[in-house]
């Protein structure tokens, strides 16, 4: 899209349909010149509104709004759902991943071990920080950092998870494997890890610090 030019004033006035509005928003996110023009137009609209009739919202609106910021966000609810699925129904994909990370387990005890891990182990969870916002990711991990299960929503590119060993060095733990629309990675590092990072084609797109009990 070229510069938004005269669309800036129409946008601020509300004279665009939803599609054109969206185009303007996309453009000003990347163009300082047009963002400034839009801000100028917005100042005029704010003046027009202030010149118009005043109205006062009900006192309850403030509390309702602030309660909304405390409510778990949609993403948190997705994670809550995933955690429940993890415990209740995601056994099949986990079993196969668990096998990959536990080649030394005796075959006849594999299922038992997986179930035991799920049911008996205390695990923590952490969300990968800001850089991964485009590709939200979360890690479930054993409380001693002895195992790590990473879930990435809508992954793209080649994703690798690295873990930080006690010597402070990040070492690869494994690749994120597609599971439907999401991706997962399970690993049991040889040494406990206290931090994770997510790399997309070699670039760090997220980090997470693990709270482990030594």
């Amino acid at each position, binding site marked *: 899209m070229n510069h938004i030019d005269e669309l800036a004033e129409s946008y601020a006035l*509300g004279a665009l349909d939803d599609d054109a509005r969206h185009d303007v928003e996309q453009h000003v996110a990347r163009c300082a010149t047009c963002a400034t023009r839009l801000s100028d137009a917005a100042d005029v*609209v704010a003046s027009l509104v202030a010149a118009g009739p005043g109205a*006062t919202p009900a006192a309850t609106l403030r509390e309702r709004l602030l309660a909304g910021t405390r409510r778990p966000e949609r993403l948190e609810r997705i994670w809550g759902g995933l955690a429940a699925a993890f415990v209740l129904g995601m056994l099949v994909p986990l079993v196969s991943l668990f096998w990959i990370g536990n080649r030394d387990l005796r075959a006849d005890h594999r299922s038992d071990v997986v179930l035991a891990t799920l049911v008996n182990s205390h695990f923590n969870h952490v969300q990968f920080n800001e850089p991964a916002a485009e590709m939200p990711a979360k890690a479930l991990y054993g409380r001693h950092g002895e195992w790590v299960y990473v879930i990435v929503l809508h992954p793209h590119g080649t994703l690798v998870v690295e873990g930080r060993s006690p010597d402070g060095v990040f070492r690869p733990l494994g690749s994120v494997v597609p599971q439907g629309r999401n991706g997962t990675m399970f690993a049991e590092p040889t040494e406990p890890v206290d931090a994770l990072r997510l790399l997309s084609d070699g670039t760090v797109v997220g980090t997470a610090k693990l709270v482990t009990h030594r």
Partner: protein
Amino acid sequence: MNDEALAAAFAQRRPEALAVAYDRYAKLLYSAAYAVLQNSADAEDCVHDSLLSLWKKTRAFMPWRGNLRSFLVVCVRNAAISKKRAQVRHSRIEDVRALAAEEREPFDPFEHERLARALALLPAEQRDPLRLAYDEHLTQTQIAQQLSIPLGTVKSRISLAMKKLRDALEVHHESH
């Protein structure tokens, strides 16, 4: 917290910033939504939903560079207009003009006077498309149809009208 610090805190999603922004701008934002929707429940929902969704994706704010107050007014007002257009599509059009005519004081009497003077200075060919956009919430295309002028002309007249208003407001500001 001055407005600049508030804008920065809002963009960083600092917990206190939404409360401060609400306390500072809620009346103006609600007035903006109410002027469009003419219904208190809808206007409250609109302010609530817009503020919360902006709060949750504040990156959208960053590129604007402008002041938080104007930004919020435009976002809330645009959301109200979308809601209004959807309502009009899905129900019979009621005579909202009659409701709007109920006697109410301007939000800011000083601003009211400044704008009235600035608007009076606009030629009719610029004021009419501006009024259809602002008061009737028509899109550029609808305005072009209503006034029987090309779309490009609507765009440039609206743009010119807005720039003149801005200049008039600024000049007036400096003389104070």
